[in-house]
């Protein structure tokens, strides 16, 4: 099928990815999704990495404008710093989509992995596994937007289930995060040996908690529920007697692809909608064991919902090869 | 009677339990040079530091021109006209800044305009330097200057101040004769202008040249005042020591076999080559102006810097050290000059300073240090050198300068050597300590060759069997220390100096 303009001549289409966060498996996988979908469409991609410098990220949008790109994907960032930069891009006639950052602009579709849905899925599973009465530990660092959104769901679930008794809240982003969280979790477990459920809605947190639970010899007693997934996480969840019971995740590579496709729709004059939500998948330990899944690729192959999200699609689009 | 610029009464100062000044009474009249003599550790520098506002006195009073004087800090003392040249040259200059800034350092501190005027600074600094005959590029960093020039920079700055009281704490310790002479002329001029001058020195030649009156100090108290002409120098020495000074009597032994043989040694490309023979059981002194190449010779012998040309043989074998470790392994030891820069390890106690070069000899398997052996060695060295201290575990910096010097010289005499080189071993030590160190050097000299480098001819005469003269990085004279023709020796020393003043 013939692609609409400008994709009839995709070599002339330039898009930019402006990133706030880059270090870590999630962001690397997201980038690879963006790269693969861009390549499949045949467009040129320029990547700007602001290394968690929000001011620089805004400048990079201006830079992309100055370079005359046709479309921009904004990946994470702060509403306050990106809002105006995004508006400037729109004013310059550039199509923009934003991933996981609300730039408060009607012309900019927002691609989301829905943190609320992630947290809800994981907590539903926790309640399914453990009933509605348990002693809980919660891992959280306030001030990080996606974590704050996941924490809001936790508060709702707690309010709805008075049997859930949160005895400890801790968390840190000190690098390496898993190691620092493991240290904290060890302290928490020795102060509260009656904890049954740890809600760690970020896989680096969950890894740390898992290490601490193992070290404390409490794998039989504590269950860990988290969000996000990576190959290393799969290995950890599948370990003999692992306390890590379930995680809810979207495939970051798929989110990357969806971001590019949403931008492509805009460029082709179509409308992906104000909000493009990539639905999360619940991944349980049992599931991984049954299907004998060893890495992200197998996860994608064996859980089709995870490999591809049927959003922001158009018949003329080429998908990355699988 | 001249007017008393400064009167000091009942001054006391203690560091912890160490009572250093114990009721000092002292008058410093205007227009006179008061020489302060005292053994190492008597408290001279401490007195100076109280006067210039570094330390606060514990008790007692100081009056300057009749008014009570208790400076809150060096700046206050300077404003009151009390100007000091400190004993430790590191206290005098700022190495990373240029000469001009160093010469004007105290006026920079004082205030004035906000912005620096480079041209005016250079001109002013040039004038200050010229007053003491210092010819230097004003834009050069002081770090590149020789010790003598640094000393002169500090002196020049003090001299420029039109002081009320000028304190000079061992100012000539690293100056050559000619430079010292220029300093003396300046002191004469200031004396004529009515400045009170407090001059501290261990050098009798300086004292004879300058003193109007002598105050002797012993154990933190004034032990003698000598004002009647002619000044009673031996009385002053007696008062400072508490006893008669021992006379030196050099009995020249029969030298043994040749230990070091240098042929065609050339220390600088443009210098003349020379030969040097040193024998076992022989103490040889090399004298010469500052900058004449004595330390350069030491550097060549100790493997610090390869000579431009020449062959060396040590104990009959070829000797060409590439680094100090090799020299030490061959039994060639060097006690370097300028102890604070080159020898003292400030973080260490006396014992650790004493054993520093020979830690392997006090260490067992795995390099573990044998404490008892180390301590015994340290105690032997302390006794042999007569270091005055509370114990071997005291910090080195709690010692007075002279006692520090004994430690860093003693460090190299604790083990047997083939050739011991002592570069200015008497730097800053009192006359008794000088005799002590000298005697120790001579007494232990039998099994080795000993080379003493000193700019002061007096010191050479007191220690050596043979005195060599160095000029322009080459040897120009050789004298047996017996009825020496001093006049000839002096011409050899200074003759070269007249022809060229070596750039530092």
């Amino acid at each position, binding site marked *: 099928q013939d692609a609409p303009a400008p994709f009839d001549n995709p070599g002339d289409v330039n898009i930019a990815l402006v990133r706030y966060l880059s270090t870590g498996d999630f962001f690397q996988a997201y980038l690879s999704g963006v790269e693969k979908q861009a390549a499949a469409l045949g467009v040129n991609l320029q990547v700007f990495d602001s290394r968690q410098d929000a001011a620089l990220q805004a400048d*990079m949008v201006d830079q992309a404008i100055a370079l005359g790109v046709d479309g921009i994907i904004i990946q994470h960032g702060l509403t306050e710093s990106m809002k105006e930069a995004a508006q400037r891009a729109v004013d310059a006639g550039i199509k923009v989509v934003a991933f996981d950052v609300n730039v408060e602009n009607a012309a900019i579709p927002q691609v989301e992995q829905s943190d609320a849905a992630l947290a809800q899925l994981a907590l539903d599973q926790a309640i399914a596994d453990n009933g509605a009465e348990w002693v809980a530990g919660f891992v959280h660092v306030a001030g990080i937007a996606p974590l704050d959104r996941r924490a809001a769901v936790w508060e709702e679930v707690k309010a709805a289930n008075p049997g859930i008794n949160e005895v400890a809240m801790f968390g840190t982003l000190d690098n390496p995060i898993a190691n620092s969280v493991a240290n904290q979790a060890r302290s928490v477990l020795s102060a509260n040996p009656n904890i049954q459920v740890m809600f760690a809605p970020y896989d680096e947190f969950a890894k740390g908690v898992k290490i601490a639970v193992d070290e404390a010899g409490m794998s039989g007693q504590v269950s860990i529920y988290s969000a996000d997934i990576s190959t290393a996480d799969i290995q950890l969840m599948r370990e003999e007697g692992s306390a890590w019971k379930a995680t809810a995740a979207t495939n970051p590579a798929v989110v990357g692809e969806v971001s590019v496709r949403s931008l492509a729709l805009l460029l082709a004059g179509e409308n992906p909608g104000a909000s493009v939500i990539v639905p999360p998948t619940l991944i349980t330990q049992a599931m991984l064991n049954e299907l004998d899944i060893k890495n992200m690729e197998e996860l994608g192959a064996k859980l089709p919902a995870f490999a591809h999200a049927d959003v922001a699609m158009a018949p003329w689009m080429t998908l990355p090869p699988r | 009677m001249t007017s008393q610029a400064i009167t000091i009464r009942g001054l006391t100062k203690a560091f912890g339990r160490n009572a250093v000044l114990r009721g000092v009474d002292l008058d410093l009249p205007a227009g006179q040079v008061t020489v302060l003599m005292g053994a190492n550790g008597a408290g001279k520098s401490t007195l100076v530091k109280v006067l210039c506002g570094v330390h606060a006195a514990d008790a007692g009073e100081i009056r300057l021109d009749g008014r009570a004087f208790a400076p809150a800090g060096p700046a206050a003392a300077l404003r009151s006209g009390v100007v000091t040249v400190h004993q430790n040259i590191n206290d005098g200059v700022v190495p990373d800044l240029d000469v001009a*800034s160093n010469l004007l350092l105290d006026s920079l501190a004082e205030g004035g305009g906000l912005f620096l005027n480079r041209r005016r600074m250079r001109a002013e600094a040039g004038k200050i330097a010229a007053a003491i005959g210092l010819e230097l590029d004003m834009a050069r960093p002081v770090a590149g200057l020789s010790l003598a020039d640094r000393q002169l920079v500090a002196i020049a700055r003090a001299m420029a101040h039109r002081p009320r009281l000028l304190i000079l704490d061992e100012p000539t310790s690293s100056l050559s004769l000619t430079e010292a002479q220029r300093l003396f002329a300046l002191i004469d001029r200031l004396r004529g202008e009515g400045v009170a001058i407090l001059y501290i020195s261990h050098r009798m030649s300086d004292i004879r040249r300058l003193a109007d009156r002598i105050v002797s100090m012993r154990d933190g108290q004034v032990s003698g005042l000598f004002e009647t002409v002619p000044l009673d120098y031996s009385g002053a020495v007696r008062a400072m020591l508490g006893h008669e000074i021992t006379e030196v009597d050099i009995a020249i032994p029969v030298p043994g076999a040749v230990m070091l043989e240098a042929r065609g040694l050339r220390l600088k490309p443009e210098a003349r080559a020379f030969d040097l023979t040193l024998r076992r059981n022989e103490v040889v002194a090399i004298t010469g102006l500052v900058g004449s190449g004595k330390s350069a010779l030491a550097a060549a012998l100790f493997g610090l810097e390869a000579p431009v040309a020449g062959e060396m043989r040590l104990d009959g074998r070829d000797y060409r050290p590439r680094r100090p470790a090799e020299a030490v392994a061959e039994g060639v030891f060097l006690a370097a000059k300028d102890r604070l820069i080159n020898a003292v390890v400030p973080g260490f106690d006396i014992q650790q300073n004493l054993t520093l070069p020979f830690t392997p000899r006090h260490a067992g398997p795995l390099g573990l240090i044998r404490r008892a052996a180390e301590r015994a060695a340290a105690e032997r060295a302390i006794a042999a050198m007569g270091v005055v201290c509370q114990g071997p575990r005291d910090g080195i910096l709690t010692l007075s300068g002279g006692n520090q010097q004994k430690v860093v010289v003693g460090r190299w005499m604790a083990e047997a050597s083939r050739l011991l080189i002592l570069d200015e071993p008497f730097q800053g030590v009192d006359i008794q300590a000088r005799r002590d160190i000298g005697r120790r050097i001579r007494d232990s000299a039998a099994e080795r060759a000993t080379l003493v480098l000193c700019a002061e001819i007096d010191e050479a005469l007191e220690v050596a069997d043979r005195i060599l003269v160095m000029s322009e990085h080459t040897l120009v004279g050789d004298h047996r220390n017996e009825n020496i023709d001093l006049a000839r020796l002096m011409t050899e020393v200074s003759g070269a100096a007249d022809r060229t003043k070596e750039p530092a």
Partner: protein
Amino acid sequence: MKSLSLTELAIRYGFLLLMAGLIVVFSVLRPAFLSPQSGVFILQSVAITGILALGVTATLVVDGFDLSIGAVATSAMMLSAYVMVIWEMGAVPAVLLCLGMGALVGLVNGLLIVKMRVPDLLATLGMMFLLVGLQRIPTQGNSISTGMMLPGGQAAEGSFAPEFLMLGRHRIDFILPDLVPLSVVVLIVIALLTWAFLELTRHGRVMYAIGSNAQAAGLAGINVAGYRILAYVISGVMASIGGILLAARLGRGDVASGNNLLLDSVAAALIGFAVLGAAKPNAFGTAIGALFVGILLQGLTMLNAPYYTQDFIKGAVLVVALVFTFALSGRVGRARR
């Protein structure tokens, strides 16, 4: 004027040549690199670290070191947000309070180091941890933005004053309309002031004297304690200016921003040692050092180099440039003497 040998020339201008070479290479590969926008962008990207680095330079000059600058900057960011969003005050009080906070932290650092004799690295490291914690306590670790929930349950009504935001966002016309952001102007002004202060005034000269030999400086009547405290106050104030600009750019008090400020600005100040063969801390060098890092990262970004190769190349170029300068000059630098 003395003529310089080839080695001396290499030492003096090697680093600047390297920088020029980089610019040429990047311009050839990506012509857009040479546009005025790109130049302004580079300046803007280094404005905040550059200002912090100039503050560090002041402490390096007196042979000190300030590890707390990053924390001071983020504290200033949080404080200004708190003042405007939660206390609902204007831009002027926000700026003044931040500057005051920076000066106070600098003063405390200085007093700890000078009066309490705590070694500089220790004192400022402790201060760093302290501030990192302190700045998050009032909001329990949350970022501060308009409409945020207050502990009382109602939403914060205040917002960032427009004049405050201008500090980070307003652009003035220069060559092109709306080209130069105010933050770049602030950087340039501060760099010039710091340079003039350190090189041209007697205070700067005296500070160098203290850094070279504090003992001798004190004996020459210089108020060593006062100047050392001053250096930390300068450093604190500069860091708070950096924090103000950061807040103005972000428009919120963000707890996650500013992680790399410390290391990046220390890097800029230290690279400054190599500029013009100074081998000592100096304001011109620091500014060039910051610019150098900005140029490198901008060029590599334009070449689509991933972030980790950027780190690698930054490190490699740093090492090579430094070896070049210091090995050739044969001088031992004064970083720690």
